[in-house]
């Protein structure tokens, strides 16, 4: 029967072309949507590289300085850090320019060692690894002793280390340089996902040390504070009062990182949810379109199906034949779709997808396209099977 149906499909290739095209394009769209969805789900569970619990951020609204200029605010910042550390509720405190879930990110393409590479950067002080509970895989985090160095220490994440120094020991490697300053790698941390759970893979993170001793260079304006678990609003008020005493003329805002995280996730998830809704409606339109096309195709063939009933096919046999035929048409369209999809890694498109996500995307798209196609074919096939053979043969 399959061979017979394949012959029929082949001989009706013109009539079937429309259905095949629709299934082919739907398969590609489904693959793209599902791959990105699986990728997002997979990334959600990846380690962040830091711990956002019990972290507060105090943003000081003081104008910054251009890199290289003298930052007169550094002594005040140093004093603020020391004052803050005196509270027993506080475990660690440091400064950072763009902490996690912060709405601003310093990223761009740098030319390093002859390689053009996209990097996310941040400036941080010595205690930042303790505040964010970042693990150091190799080397070390910044320390007060770094003030004596004749280069600026840099800590990079393992993604960046692999990209920049593949096969080499990253420690001690020159990271960047200009006329007056040289940056060198002193430590490697696990992959760091600045925007949290929705971050793309491979952010290529690099932290540059900020010295509060040297007046040169701009200091970050965010105090990142790790408080003891369970520290509540009463302490928040106390801390705000103390900070106000130290810097009465500087306006500042205190935000908990979990609140920032909620805001950031909402901001990142809204487009994802919207695109999922659009994809759902797109697929519904595809299903409706397919139902219409199949309905028309089955209606056109009512007399042929009546003939098949007359010569021995039962109602369910005719229904199954229509379903098998649709499944075969879908299979032919999907084979063409698979050929296209299998070219993508070779062309470097969708290179951000891992092999697992890529495979899951294909399996998911296959399951969805067969489900949509067969569900679309159910009603037309039921219509085909419910006519008596005599009615079907008379059908005009």
């Amino acid at each position: 029967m399959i061979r017979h149906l394949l012959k029929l499909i082949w001989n009706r290739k013109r009539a079937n072309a429309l259905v095949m095209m629709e299934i082919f394009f739907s398969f590609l769209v489904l693959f793209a949507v599902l791959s990105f969805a699986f990728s997002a789900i997979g990334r959600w569970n990846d380690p962040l590289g830091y711990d956002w619990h019990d972290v507060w951020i105090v943003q000081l609204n003081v104008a910054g300085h251009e890199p290289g200029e003298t930052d007169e605010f550094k002594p005040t910042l140093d004093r603020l850090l020391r004052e803050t550390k005196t509270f027993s509720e506080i475990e660690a405190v440091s400064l950072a320019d763009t902490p996690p879930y912060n709405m601003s990110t310093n990223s761009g393409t740098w030319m390093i060692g002859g390689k053009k590479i996209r990097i996310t950067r941040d400036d941080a002080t010595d205690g930042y690894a303790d505040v964010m509970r970042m693990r150091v895989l190799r080397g070390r985090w910044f320390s007060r002793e770094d003030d004596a160095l004749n280069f600026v220490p840099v800590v990079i994440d393992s993604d960046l280390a692999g990209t920049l120094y593949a096969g080499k020991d990253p420690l001690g490697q020159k990271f960047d340089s200009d006329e007056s300053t040289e940056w060198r790698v002193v430590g490697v941390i696990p992959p760091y996902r600045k925007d949290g759970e929705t971050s793309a893979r491979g952010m290529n993170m690099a932290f540059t040390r900020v010295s509060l001793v040297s007046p040169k260079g701009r200091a970050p304006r965010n105090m990142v504070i790790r408080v003891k678990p369970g520290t509540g609003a009463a302490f928040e008020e106390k801390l705000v009062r103390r900070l106000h005493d130290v810097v009465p003329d500087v306006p500042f805002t205190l935000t908990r990182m979990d609140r920032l995280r909620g805001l950031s996730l909402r901001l990142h998830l809204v487009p994802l949810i919207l695109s999922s809704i659009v994809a759902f409606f797109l697929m519904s339109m595809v299903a409706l379109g397919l139902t219409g096309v199949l309905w028309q195709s089955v209606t056109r063939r009512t007399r042929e199906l009546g003939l098949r009933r007359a010569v021995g096919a039962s109602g369910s046999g005719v229904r199954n034949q229509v379903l098998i035929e649709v499944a075969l048409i879908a299979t032919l369209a999907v084979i063409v779709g698979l050929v296209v999809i299998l070219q993508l890694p070779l062309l470097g498109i969708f290179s951000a997808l891992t092999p697992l996500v890529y495979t899951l995307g294909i399996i998911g798209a296959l399951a969805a396209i067969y489900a949509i196609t067969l569900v679309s074919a159910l009603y037309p096939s039921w219509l085909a099977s419910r006519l008596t053979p005599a009615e079907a043969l008379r059908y005009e």
Partner: protein
Amino acid sequence: MIKLENIDKVYRTARVETLALHNINLDVPSGEFVSVMGPSGCGKSTLLNLIGLLDRPTAGTLAIDGQNVETSERKLARVRNEKLGFVFQTFHLVPDLKVIDNVEIPLLYRKMSGAQRRKLAAAALDRVGLSSRMQHFPTQLSGGQQQRVAIARAIVGKPRILLADEPTGNLDSAMGDEIMDILHELNREEKTTIVMVTHDDRFARRTDRIVRLFDGRRVA
């Protein structure tokens, strides 16, 4: 071979009820060639559809080959496949399938290999003198040739009963004679029971018996 007792067929729509057949009794013994005649709309095709299990009677009983017809659709389909062969006025060939594939269709609903199907289909086409046209599409054939293909499809499963609904209706007289010759040959040589609906008195006279209908009733 075919026995109809007190058969009624009523077509009902939301507004109208049409009595297509009323109290039809008919007994066709094995090997007989019967023609059914009557004016248009008298119920000839309805009668043939009921005998061919393509439709169900409103009342009465119908027996094929000594067995009362089952009500299960699956069983009816099996009887249609194994015991009955159909020839229609408009041929009902699938235009997208080659002649040989058209003839194979009834065998698709039986358990047999593709090679066996092909062999039987080729033999049936040979029987109607069309073995040279196996790889043609129906649209490449004349009307008479298409009806011969339809006969080959009807006899490929070696049914004991052949039901022909105006098989010569769309053909000129020469082609009609050709088709009638094939039907007579099948009746004579294979002892196939044939019930044929026709408008043509000339062809009806060549059969063993003429059943006449008028306004849904049997009048002769």
